[in-house]
């Protein structure tokens, strides 16, 4: 099933199975997210994209199988051991998950206050740097409840990258954003990936954006996953996959089809 790859896996799932009660979400799931790459996780709603991200973060333990994150096996670790792994991860939750009772500034500053000895000035500098990178300014004192969905998600993204993680997990970073902000976040993630070598794993329904920025697309279906480069998937012989990628997939193929060059093995 798994294709042999030369890329060293930064995150890898092997033989993962998970059920919620009687509802099976994954069975025999094998997938890898390569180091220093942008991988986009796709699939219809309810196929387990968010759940897979939670498993990579150690928040959800699989029933079977193994999960390697940055060279560390997650399954079997206790909460204290997971802390060390999580220090290398940043996670953007679908709903932001900012703390209600703290201002936006304090939310973004929180990991710095907890894990570093930076001075107040340095903290303010870093926090404002991250907030402006996601296109937010003058909202330091606002509470998360006072932000729109899109602003909330961007503030949460600022928090996720404030500790400069090695691996960034983003659950639906584009949903609810207006087009300028979609471009801004896309540019930010691409920049972090290219200049800092950040491994980015995102889930997204934004087909055009995903095809454009992804090095690899992983499509969840039938309790497992199919993966390939955007061009490979867009030209897949499987009509269900082509249908899922839709018009955007066809357009992508028209422009990038030449990149294929028999890459499929």
């Amino acid at each position: 099933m798994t294709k042999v790859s030369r890329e060293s896996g930064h995150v890898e799932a092997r033989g993962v199975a998970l059920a919620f009660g009687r509802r099976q979400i994954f069975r025999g799931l094998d997938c890898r997210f390569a180091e220093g790459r942008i991988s986009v996780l796709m699939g219809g709603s309810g196929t387990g994209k968010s759940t897979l991200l939670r498993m990579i973060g150690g928040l959800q333990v699989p029933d079977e199988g193994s999960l390697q994150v940055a060279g560390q096996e997650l399954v079997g670790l206790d909460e204290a051991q997971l802390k060390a792994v999580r220090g290398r991860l940043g996670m953007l939750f679908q709903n932001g998950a900012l703390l209600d009772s703290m201002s936006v500034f304090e939310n973004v500053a929180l990991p710095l206050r907890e894990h570093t000895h930076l001075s107040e000035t340095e903290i303010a500098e870093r926090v404002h740097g991250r907030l402006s990178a996601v296109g937010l300014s003058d909202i330091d004192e606002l509470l998360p409840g006072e932000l729109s969905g899109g602003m909330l998600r961007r503030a949460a993204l600022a928090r996720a990258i404030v500790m400069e993680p090695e691996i960034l997990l983003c659950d639906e970073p584009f949903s609810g954003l207006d087009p300028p902000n979609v471009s801004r976040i896309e540019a930010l993630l691409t920049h972090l990936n290219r200049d800092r070598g950040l491994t980015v794993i995102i889930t997204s329904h934004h087909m055009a954006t995903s095809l454009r920025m992804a090095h690899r697309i992983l499509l969840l279906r039938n309790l497992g996953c199919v993966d390939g480069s955007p061009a490979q998937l867009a030209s897949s012989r499987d009509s269900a996959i082509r249908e899922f990628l839709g018009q955007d997939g066809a357009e992508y193929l028209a422009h990038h089809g030449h990149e294929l060059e028999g890459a499929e093995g």
Partner: protein
Amino acid sequence: MRRGLSNLGAATLRQIEELGRMIRFGGRIVMAAGRPPFRWRSFMAAVYDSGLLSVALICAAGLTVGFVLGLQLYNTLVRFGAEDSLGTAVGLSLIRELGPVLTGLLVTGRAGSAITAEIGAMRTGQQLDGLRMMAIDPIHFVVMPRAMAVFFVLPLLSALFVALGIFGAYLMGVEVLGLDGGTYLASLEAAVEFDTDVLQSLVKSVVFGVLLALIATWRGYSCEPHSAGVSRATTSTVVTASIAILLADYLLTALWSL
């Protein structure tokens, strides 16, 4: 019939498992309290929420209960010509029983439910998971300060309740029913002893504080992550903590009189 019994058995087993999980959770709170840094800022905020904001309620309730006790006990005592012991009767019932128990129940409704709802909402909004992903222990960051605050404020509020109750009964007995103020206070002073009455009161309010802190935070922390789950957890806190407090009161009273 047999099926009913086996269902009952399974339900009991589940309850025992749940109790075990809750006790383990309590252990984690205690460990977290011992692990620096102590979250002073969150602790003070929780003392404000659970304690200071309950002061008006406790004062009003203490005073009212004092009026009622003054009136009822006076009416009973006067039949035996023993109205001079009103101070004794009021003081002992308030200090030993009513102060800690009613404070426990009132704080359960006022602050315990709020703590469950808040932690439950944080769980539902994935804020607790968000903390874990930032390598911050939610028990240390969110649960411990709130639990410690309840534990800390309950004995103080109970003392406040007792003081207001004694004052209320004084107003009723002396100002309304015409008892002699000096007699009331003297009979109060003569009857109340530190190592039986005051200590018992203190032990009770501390135990109730532990029970309420544990139940309220556990119910929130372990609630099902949706709004119906939060509302169920909140109700459950009020019911479980109230029963636990009444049961503990009975056990402690029985132990004390051995």
